[in-house]
């Protein structure tokens, strides 16, 4: 039903999104934790900075990435020299753009789930002899887990749909940076390719819908008083 080129697009999209979420997870969690639990000056500013990609025109985010991570950009040169990784016009760059764009959603969901953990349960664990690390591992993390997973699923879905920053930063290279939305856009430029547009769009709808349903189920599970295992 799908052509090899279309399968390639889907596989690339899943790879880019998966890497984007996995790579940004530690940062997203750290930011969520800081915003949920931290008491420091500039918290509001950090909050705003994290949310910036949500409201900035994606093309601006892509342009900023180009300046920072391009071959002559400071971050780009650093990545090239120390890790030997080039991101410009590569699928890794698409993952980077997707990660930046997904970060606000991930941080937001994770932050809410951390804030929803009853601190009094942590105090109870402490009074029973648990160290901070153990309280985190046995109380905070398991209770926040559904929300953390929901954040990851949302981030994954957002990454699948990422278009503007990606095409600005890494362009539209078949097999390298042509992800699902960019492939749909490309197909729209070619007369007579309505079939491909329809197929790819349906796949995009299905993937997005599935992600939203999973995320909603996880969020409800986090909200409702728990009765079963966390997962």
């Amino acid at each position, binding site marked *: 039903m799908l052509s090899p080129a279309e399968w390639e697009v889907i596989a690339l999209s899943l790879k880019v999104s998966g890497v984007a979420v996995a790579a940004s997870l530690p940062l997203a969690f750290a930011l969520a934790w800081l915003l949920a639990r931290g008491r420091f000056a500039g918290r509001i500013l950090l909050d705003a900075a994290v949310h910036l990609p949500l409201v900035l025109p994606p093309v601006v985010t892509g342009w900023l990435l180009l300046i920072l991570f391009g071959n002559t950009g400071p971050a780009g040169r650093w990545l090239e020299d120390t890790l030997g990784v080039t991101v410009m016009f590569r699928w890794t760059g698409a993952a980077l753009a997707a990660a930046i764009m997904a970060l606000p959603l991930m941080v937001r969901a994770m932050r809410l789930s951390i804030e929803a953990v*009853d601190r*009094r*349960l942590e*105090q*109870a*664990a*402490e*009074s*029973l*002899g*648990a*160290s901070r690390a*153990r309280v985190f591992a*046995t*109380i905070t993390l*398991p*209770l926040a887990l559904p929300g953390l997973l929901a954040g990851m699923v949302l981030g994954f879905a957002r990454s699948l749909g990422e278009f503007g920053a990606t095409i600005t930063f890494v362009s539209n290279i078949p097999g390298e940076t042509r992800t699902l939305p960019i492939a749909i856009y490309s197909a729209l430029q070619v007369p007579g390719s309505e079939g491909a547009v329809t197929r790819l769009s349906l796949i995009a709808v299905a993937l997005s819908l599935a992600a939203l349903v999973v995320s909603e189920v996880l969020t409800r599970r986090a909200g409702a*008083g*728990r*009765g*079963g*295992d*966390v997962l």
Partner: protein
Amino acid sequence: MSFEVCIERRLGERRIAADFAAAGGLTALFGPSGAGKTSLLNMVAGLLRPDAGRIAVGGTVLFDAQRGVDLPARRRRAGYVFQDGRLFPHRRVRDNLLYGWKLARPEDRWMTLDEATGFLGIAHLLDRWPRTLSGGEAQRVAIGRALLSGPRFLLMDEPLASLDRARREEIMEVIERLRDELALPILYVSHDRDEVERLANRVVAVG
């Protein structure tokens, strides 16, 4: 003396202070709601840091502002029974009961799971989830969890407040047995005069 407490702490506009010494048995901190009784318990437990003063239980100094002693909560060996139970919702009753027991040093444990469930009549609840328990059942599990952590003393914060009359009687009998059979020093917070008159060996007025 079991409890030697002389502490103060400012919380916003309020100043919370207590100064008392008490032998074993059940010592009630009695006073109106909002007098800071729970904050006092939290300071003894190590969950809230006093601005000044000293806390010792059974001769062990837990906090001494002048000498810079401030044992973290996890090392104070307090069995804290909270007003609202605070059972861990993601763990079954058995795992709630054993949470502190597993963390305690073997030589500090003085009760087994079987003894605790027998003492409290909760053996039939072990595989249940906390949210399926009644208020009285949850409070007995909370007491069991505190006892199994191998505490040197108990802190009880209005453990009857969220229970109906029949359950109150049931938990009250459990507390009397804790006091008389286990001979654990207990610091007990309440605003209910009848409760205090029945349970307390001595009463400290707060607020």
